[in-house]
């Protein structure tokens, strides 16, 4: 095998005398039943570990067999902000596990640990009465089979979940109300243990990223910066903001978050390091936000106009990209396909679709090829790999509530494909629950 390396002018890969660094990646994983990505039932056959620096072509990858728990990338050039990604595949090429460490500095031999998590989606439910209210439970779904893996109860007396988001691969953040008091619940993704933060106002959403202790809870008219590591309130933002949260996203490095609210100005940008808030008015009646993996680029959708606006969160500049076939709701961005996926609900029966907008060509994907969902789709999230999305639909009634897996694909493959099924029944209830929101570990 030819081993020679070309050192070409501008494209010098190795600095003079830079023989590269050994980068060891240790794969940590949960041993809890249902969460272990190496369990036989998951079907993991190999893990691909990829290191990607800030440059355009300074990525490399190695494969490790399922019985290995670490990977060595030899001779990686010195870089400051290297993103380490681990994807676990089954025999079909489905991403059954995912792990990520952003912003790793590789200046010498270094060893990093990546938490490899089973690719799971967590779903909240619409409130309803009963001995075991649906809104007090989370269902956990496998993103390959669409089957429910387990059920998690939210702590408290009578908790009513509002929204859920992922704090990378570390935890899920659940905003909920219990007895009139607001809480942020922090569900550990490795153990399913809970910690809670009591708030003054019931939050609509809580956002945060691993490596950044400060997150933000928005809702009930208030903005609260919370310390997610200490499970405490860090600071209550003085001015009230009003409105109801429709969607939100946080950058992978935890430096900024963006929230869509249903009142003027519509868009709130949070600097989680400085703990500041500013507003943006870029689109009429914003309804959803999708965030690119770089954490800087957000895509805003509208429920009044079918427009798609790209926002540079660091500079605040906004650019109109194009339009969906019609108004849409909540959104998510898939880096793997370069596509904004947004929920559309048509007519009095709420016929559901996942519409796609290609940000490179700046064109909407054909409506006829849109993935159908059950009626009244209510939540969408994309997984860490950017290839798989999970959509839940509240349905017109409990019998039409459903769940849809979407595999985003390049246009060469004919577009995204989906698999839908009616929502599984709970063991304790003859009526089917109605899903409300969804978050995926490491997802957005």
């Amino acid at each position: 095998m030819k081993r020679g390396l070309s050192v070409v002018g501008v494209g010098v890969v190795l600095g003079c005398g830079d023989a590269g660094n050994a980068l060891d990646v240790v794969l940590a994983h949960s041993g809890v039943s249902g969460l272990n990505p190496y369990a036989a039932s998951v079907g993991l056959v190999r893990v691909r570990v990829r290191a990607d620096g800030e440059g355009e072509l300074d990525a490399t990858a190695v494969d490790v067999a399922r019985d290995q728990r670490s990977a060595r990338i030899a001779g990686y050039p010195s870089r400051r902000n290297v993103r380490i990604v681990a994807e676990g595949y089954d025999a079909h090429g489905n991403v059954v596990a995912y792990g990520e460490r952003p912003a790793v500095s590789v200046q010498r031999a270094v060893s990093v640990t990546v938490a490899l998590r089973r690719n799971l989606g967590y779903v909240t439910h619409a409130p309803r009465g009963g001995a075991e209210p649906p809104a007090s439970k989370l269902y956990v779904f496998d993103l390959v089979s669409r089957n429910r893996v387990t059920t998690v109860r939210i702590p408290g007396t009578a908790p009513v979940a509002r929204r859920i988001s992922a704090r990378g691969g570390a935890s899920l953040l659940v905003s909920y109300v219990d007895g009139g008091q607001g809480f942020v619940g922090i569900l550990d993704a490795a153990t399913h243990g809970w910690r809670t933060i009591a708030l003054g106002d019931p939050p609509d959403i809580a956002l945060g990223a691993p490596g950044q202790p400060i997150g933000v809870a928005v809702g009930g008219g208030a903005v609260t910066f919370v310390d997610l590591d200490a499970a405490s309130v860090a600071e209550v933002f003085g001015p009230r903001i009003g409105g109801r949260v429709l969607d939100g996203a946080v950058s992978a490095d935890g430096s900024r978050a963006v929230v869509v609210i249903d009142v003027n100005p519509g868009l709130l940008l949070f600097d989680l390091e400085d703990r500041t808030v500013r507003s943006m008015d870029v689109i009429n009646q914003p309804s959803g936000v999708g965030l690119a993996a770089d954490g800087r680029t957000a895509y805003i959708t509208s429920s009044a106009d079918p427009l798609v606006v790209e926002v540079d969160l660091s500079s605040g500049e906004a650019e109109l990209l194009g339009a969906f076939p019609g108004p849409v709701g909540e959104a998510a961005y898939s880096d793997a396909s370069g596509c904004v996926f947004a929920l559309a609900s048509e007519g009095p029966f709420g016929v559901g679709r996942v519409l796609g907008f290609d940000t490179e060509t700046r064109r909407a994907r054909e409506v006829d090829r849109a993935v159908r969902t059950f009626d009244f789709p209510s939540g969408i999230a994309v997984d860490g790999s950017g290839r798989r999305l999970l959509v839940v639909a509240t349905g017109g009634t409990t019998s039409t509530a459903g769940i849809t897996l979407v595999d985003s694909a390049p246009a060469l493959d004919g577009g995204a494909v989906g698999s839908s099924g009616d929502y599984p029944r709970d063991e304790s209830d003859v009526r089917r629950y109605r899903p409300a929101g969804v978050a995926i570990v490491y997802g957005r």
Partner: protein
Amino acid sequence: MVTSNVGCRIDQDCADEGFNALSCLNGVCQRPCLRDVDCAIPAFDEEDPPACREGVSSVPAAFCEGQVCRLGCPDVPCAPGEVCQAARCALDYRGFERGSQPFVNLSTLGWNAIDRPAENTRMAIVYRGDEGCRLGDPDCAGVASEGERFALLARQPTPPKGTSVTAFTCRPCRCCLECLATPFDETDPPPPIRPASCPVGRTAPAPIACFDPPPAHCRDVCQACDACPDADPARIGERLASCEVAAARKTCPSCRDCDALLPACTRSACPVCATAPASLACGECVRDRCQSRPECRSCGVCEDALDCDPNDAACMQQGGQCAGLGVGGCFFTPVSYRDEQLDDHEQALVSPAIDLSAAAGSVFLRFDYVSFGVGERYRPGIQGRDPMTWPEAPQEVLLQFCSADCDRPSGWGTARGAGGEPVFFPPVDRRSNRLVLGGQTRLDWRNGRIRVPIPPERLVSSFRYRFVPRIGDDAQVGVDAIYIRSDR
């Protein structure tokens, strides 16, 4: 480019070598992938440099394996005896497509070509269907894993009773059978049954169980049954309820001559009955060649009267003749039930014989599947027993191999995975997927792929594999894209 053997440390090294579409993976410039389409290279068009358009006549065939693109056939030739399918060289490939044939079914493709006492008739090849078709029909079965068709596995249900083989008995015995097999209101029992007013059913009942002892309203007619002449005991077969046995033991006076000639006629005219007395072929032969004899025609007067239009003059005449026979009138009664409980050997979908004798390297079988309505447990069924007493078993589809004596159940062994575990599907945690036939997508096919090693001792000239469906009556499993390949 699809792949190379050029070493690298990062993607830039590949770009420096001119491999713009390759990435540095495992120290080699390669193309990562998750699906075959990720390895596809669009054909050059007018936007590409002339040197590319003119220098490259066709894009290479490639496929995704191990999440890496690999050059495939026909650009990379297959070994002698192999076929090229979807850029992969295979020792054998089964995709259930029609090809150049005018029509296709399992038989035309060589499946199930072994001798078995019975065969599962619910297995079929189904077609994805044309746009707008009614999903769920065999001709509207939804997307296949590859192509337009796939095989659909289903289990042939076990009937509680099955198809009966009948012979004549006297009127009181048929009435007694009917009475003992018919539920009644114990708080308001019917009056005693009189032979002159029965039987009332056009066909004999097929009870799982009979009232024993006879209820009061049945006693008179059952006692009259005892007085009928005895039939040849050799005609009494299997899977009869007690009241059916009682009726089968008796014949009717009008059929004495017929009863006398039937055994000899059956032996001489229907040799099939010697080896398969309960078979359909035997029954049809006896009916056509023996029961049609003049001595037997008078036996059928009463059965013919039950069957015809009561307003028809000829029918009324037959009815009168039957009534005139009184207790001597003859009616059908079951004398045995055909064995319609298929065992695993008979339920299975069996592949054609495949020559693997020249195979080299590690050989494996790989296929895709999608399940429809496969739950946790089911009742396989025991014919002749009350279904409520049938025991439960887990639902699964077994994969089995055979290298010799595939006509016999003993020739088959369960396929084992790389770790020695028996191969069955779907796995426990992937059942109950709430998918119905026609509703599957390519995503659902991607959820199910099985890869099984074929042990060296099975690499013979007449290797077969089979799928044994141990699933519920309403469950189905689609299988498609069955490859036998070697790791060369």
